[in-house]
């Protein structure tokens, strides 16, 4: 299988804070990845770089065999133009911690509008696709509600449907349950589990839900200090971590939760 995502020596700083330090990362096509680690360890930054919401300071990122932040011009590698980024963004979709639904549109309009504008689908095509996805996320009866009439969990499921409607090769989930009340977390995770088992979309999820990460992921990456400390199959990372820092994090995490 090919690498659909590749980070080569990628560095990124915010002011004096180095959030990514010469990061190398390869993700295979169709892989489901869980990114765990303490806050500020650079997990979210990886997703935001892939979604082109943050630039990189150094190194190369490739998506689907092409540079994301660079392009080739007469054999020379130059920084990516807005046109190039626009083309590359078609491969990628993202779901945010704060949902970020468009509050002036109903749930179904949130899912239809981007299809009509970007995918150039007709309104009936967009509607059909949206209804199919509302079925998938279990919100068929809520599709004409406005976001403020929905619970956090419902809003997040609409946001997932909206991203899926664009049919990206790669889906990014940035702490999608962190803003939810505890009793609403499961309805969102259920949808993600279903997606993970039913589709061959590549998925990267940043999460603090360790049980979920264990079930969902083919591979778990533990981040600390802008680098991957440890990576491996979930059963290895969670049951038998090799690195001391991973052990400490998992121990602290489990203590905090309980």
């Amino acid at each position, binding site marked *: 299988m090919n690498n659909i995502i590749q980070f080569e020596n990628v560095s990124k700083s915010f002011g004096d804070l180095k959030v990514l330090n010469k990061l190398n990362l390869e993700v295979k096509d169709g892989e489901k990845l869980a990114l765990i680690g303490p806050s500020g360890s650079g997990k979210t930054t990886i997703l935001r770089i892939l*979604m*082109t*919401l943050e630039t990189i300071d150094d190194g190369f990122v490739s998506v689907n065999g092409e540079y994301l932040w660079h392009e080739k011009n007469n054999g020379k590698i130059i920084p990516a133009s807005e046109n190039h980024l*626009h083309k590359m*963004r*078609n491969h*990628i*979709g*993202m779901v*945010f911690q*704060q949902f*970020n*639904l*468009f*509050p*002036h549109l109903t749930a179904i309009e949130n899912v239809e*509008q*981007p299809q009509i*504008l*970007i995918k150039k689908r007709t309104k009936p095509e967009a509607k059909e696709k949206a209804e199919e996805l509302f079925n998938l996320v279990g919100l068929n009866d809520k599709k004409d509600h406005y*976001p*403020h*009439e*929905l*619970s*956090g969990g419902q*809003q997040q499921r609409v946001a997932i449907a*909206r*991203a899926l409607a*664009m049919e990206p090769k790669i889906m990014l989930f940035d702490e999608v349950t962190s*803003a939810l009340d505890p009793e609403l977390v499961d309805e969102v995770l259920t949808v993600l589990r279903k997606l993970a088992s039913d589709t061959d979309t590549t998925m990267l999820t940043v999460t603090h839900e360790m049980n979920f990460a264990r079930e969902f992921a083919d591979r778990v990456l533990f981040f600390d200090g802008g680098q991957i400390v440890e990576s491996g199959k979930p059963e290895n990372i969670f049951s038998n971590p090799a690195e001391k820092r991973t052990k400490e994090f998992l121990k602290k995490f489990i203590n905090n939760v309980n």
Partner: protein
Amino acid sequence: MNWSWDHAYAVLPQLLKGLVITIEATIVASLIAYVLGLAIAILKMSKSKSMRVSLYWITEFIRRTPILVQLYVVFYVLPDFGIFLEAFTCGVIVLGVHFSTYTSEVFRAGIDNVSKGQWEAAKSLNYNPYQAWKYVILPQAIPPMIPPLANYLITMFKETPLLAFITVVELFRAADQYSNSYYTYLEPMTLVGVFFLLVSIPSAMIAMKLEKKFKPIKVAR
């Protein structure tokens, strides 16, 4: 001094003509103030620092000098540089540009109120900046702007008598002309006041209604 109904009736046709000019001036000036204000607000968010700084000083300069002085400069001084404008054109441009410095603040506040997450969501769905503005940002930003913009409309309406000083025969100057011919100020000026109230009080009531109607869009968490 006694109220003369004869004068009141005699001045009425001129006043009505003046009122039409006043309303036309208000409408054209407010359109300029809104379109230019929005442009200033968007340009003030530009990445270019020199753009932001120069716009800051230009708008400060316009806002901190009297409208009357600006009217005189544009109407009486610009012709020295070969720029001739009709009095009405000149008046609505000056009024519109002056108030665009205020409306731009309304637009800016409205746009600032739309969260950064909305921009990011639009970008993640691959909206280009034009689509993001048109379909995501402005539809959320504009409703809360409507009440303050309506209030500026009423303020502009009340400032239109300034155009009299550059020969525009609007409501106030129409009355003034009559007063100068017949040496009576009581009836014409009283009627001018009444006309202004008749327009601005209902407008203010509509503006208050709008304020209730267009509360900011709720975002549930």
